[in-house]
């Protein structure tokens, strides 16, 4: 039993040694970024059923696009929440996680190009909601801009943490 525990300890030291320690600033930035992502996801997914493509021929394909973007926002928020929990339980991130964070910066940059163009093609299902939808569109764009910036900052901090560990 003692030997088994010692073996588990050795595995623990090895496994935790492969991951990199996150700085307090990274942990705070992860938390802040998570909050923005959750807000954006909620904002998008609660209103997505009230918008429709302005052109009839684009209604079907843009409905799928709206849904896919809602899923993407939801998954990014979920991923950040998981990383937030991971950093709270143990302040370490793997190199693979750092790489996925880097990739997601690029994903958000692409979403920043797609979402404004998509919103420009959408209108309110009920014309009585025109004003509310117009305000919502601006809020989404603002929050997406904030999320992209916050995520880019998070990526920089994670990279800095890795660089510190290498020294």
């Amino acid at each position: 039993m003692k030997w088994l525990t010692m073996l588990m300890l050795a595995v623990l030291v090895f496994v935790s040694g492969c991951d990199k320690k996150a700085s307090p600033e990274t942990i705070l930035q992860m938390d802040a970024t998570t909050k923005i992502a959750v807000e954006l996801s909620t904002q998008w997914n609660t209103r997505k059923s009230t918008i429709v493509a302005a052109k009839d021929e684009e209604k079907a394909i843009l409905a799928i696009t709206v849904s896919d973007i809602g899923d993407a926002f939801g998954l990014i928020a979920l991923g950040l929440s998981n990383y937030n929990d991971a950093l709270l339980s143990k302040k370490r991130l793997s190199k693979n996680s750092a790489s996925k964070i880097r990739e997601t910066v690029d994903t958000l940059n692409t979403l920043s190009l797609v979402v404004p163009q998509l919103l420009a093609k959408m209108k309110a299902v009920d014309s009585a909601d025109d004003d509310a939808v117009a305000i919502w569109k601006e809020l989404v764009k603002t929050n997406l801009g904030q999320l992209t910036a916050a995520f880019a900052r998070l990526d920089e901090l994670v990279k800095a943490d890795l660089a510190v560990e290498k020294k």
Partner: protein
Amino acid sequence: MDTKEILAAMDLNENLFTGEHWERVGKDMLKALQISAEAFVKTNMPIAVNLTDDEVKGLLYAAVISSPELPVVPANADAEMLAMAAYICKVRAQGFALMSEAQKQKNASIALLEKNAKEFAVNLGGVLLNVAFGALATGVTKAAIGAVTQ
């Protein structure tokens, strides 16, 4: 048949896919088309090439998750291009969420192992302390008995 021709034949916007990665996607699709064509020759079905939407999507999905490459979205993208870019972003977000889940579970396991290791160390310390005190008490008792009997 190159990638662009394959994508065009499938009513996919060929301008969306550029670069080496998408050339590989094209080759995968070509392979799928060849398998389909061979099946036609063997069974003499009336339709030579028949890839379903799900099969095309599956090939794209496999291609997207295996590469970090993103499509170039121009300023005046059409609905089809926006749809494909959104789909690729969704697939990449799935990869991000999956990796985060793995990291969360790993960190939780390490935290639990560390907690158990600390408890084990405390318990082991207690046992060693008990043994030491026991030995000391035994020694003192024996010495006292020895002194009394002398």
